[in-house]
């Protein structure tokens, strides 16, 4: 049986729509993205060279890593350029009081 690994992070009030931020969960830096009220969680490490994605740019659904301009669809985690890249996605849910919970899975 899966153990509950949901960890409390920040509140939705602190992550505006169209914004992203990095939080630390169980030692892992997690990127939280708010797309029109839907919050998604990814590893903050770009799959290219592990650069911090929160230092990049979120424009609509396009997430761009500042280091080498790799681009991702923030709604799916799929690479746009290059199109065979993929962000590591984590479980994410928002509680009734706006708390954002993240599950980074077994370590």
């Amino acid at each position, binding site marked *: 049986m899966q153990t509950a690994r949901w960890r409390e992070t920040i509140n939705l009030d602190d992550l505006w729509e169209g914004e992203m931020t990095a939080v630390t969960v169980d030692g892992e830096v997690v990127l939280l993205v708010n797309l029109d009220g839907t919050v998604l969680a990814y590893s903050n490490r770009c799959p290219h*060279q592990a650069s911090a994605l929160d*230092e*990049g*740019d979120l*424009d609509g659904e396009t997430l*761009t890593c*500042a*280091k*080498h*301009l790799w681009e991702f669809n923030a709604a799916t985690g799929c690479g746009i*350029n290059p199109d065979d890249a993929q962000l590591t996605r984590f479980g994410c849910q928002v509680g009734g009081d706006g708390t954002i919970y993240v599950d980074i899975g077994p370590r």
Partner: protein
Amino acid sequence: MSRPQRKPRIVAVGGGVASAAALAELRKEGFDGDLTLVSAEDTVPYERPPLSKEFLLGRSGSVPVKDPAWYEQQSVELLLGLPATRLDLAARTVTRSDGSVIGYDQLLLATGVRPRLLPGVDGDGVCYLRTVQDATELRDRIGAAGHVAVLGGGFIGCEVASAAIQLGKRATILEALPTLLHRALGSDLGEVVAGIHRDAGVDVRTGQPVTGLTPRPGGGVQVTVGDDPVDADVLVVGVGTVPNQELAQQAGLSVENGIEVDEYFATAVPGVWAVGDVVAQYLPRYGRRVRVEHHDTALRHGRAVARNMLGRREPFADVHWFWSDQFEHTISSAGLTDATAPLIIRGSLEQRSFSAFSLDGDQLRSVISLNRPKDVLDVRKLIARDHRATADQLRDESLPLKRLVPSPATDPRVSA
């Protein structure tokens, strides 16, 4: 009785990222004719940026742009290991060095550049860096060396020196100009980069031309520079590049510091296109021809030309962008830099965290950043759209750069 219709064939000459990106985009956009890649190198197109960085450090192997299996899956014919030696634009054929002839309906020239060779600077212990073969040889030589010298304080020289130090070697940069990266960054920013290299242990010798080169008895070379000769086990020469434009020139295409193309990548000959480091492209934004040697630009060229080859007629307007990793620092830039333009600094040169902007009236022309890649992303977006900027705004750290886009309420053209 009619013959079955032959599928159109596109031939790409040159095996770099521009070619690979064009082939991929052609298939992605539904081109189902024949595709052929002709490359002098004997591997599928690979990423060159790591060759002077992670590859030398042993942290990365050769990284293909597209997996070798992709070419088979997408029915892209690979003609590798032999250069194209002749184009016949009237007969629409490419001839390779073994005499084999390939016909085309449309031709893409992406022949790239080669290192500029210094006359008299050759022999054992002298290396140039462009291909994965060069990089493999250099990696092995640096591994066996105690002292690595680089001739030329440009991006290749600085990145190789950075790698050599990180591998525990002694490193020396020899540059005739007053600072490192002088042509790209100008003297003030170049001096910051020189400081980074000196602090990391590189012997940076700027402002002194090399006057002689002598092979050493035990291997390696002795370089005469000023009064103090440099004994190096390996000398890496990085003194610029030369466009591989001879094939185009001999075929009668217009060349001058690159193959001349318009903003659609078209040459003067219908069905013949050119992209990547080798092109001198006319860009209306600048009112002149521009030749850049950036990886990102070559990739975007490839994608854009593919759409134009399929009849789209989309002018190329992407903002030029590049980066360089040296030690723990990242230099990145957007726009077309002009090392002689006055620079507006946000951040601190001393703390090695700054963005240096240049303005063209009230429009951003370019930015060069050290360790502030987000600024570069923001400027890249600003250059591509309507914006207004003043020097004071750019210096003001408290003002987010994205605010430089006029809001609809204050834009006179909206209310007019």
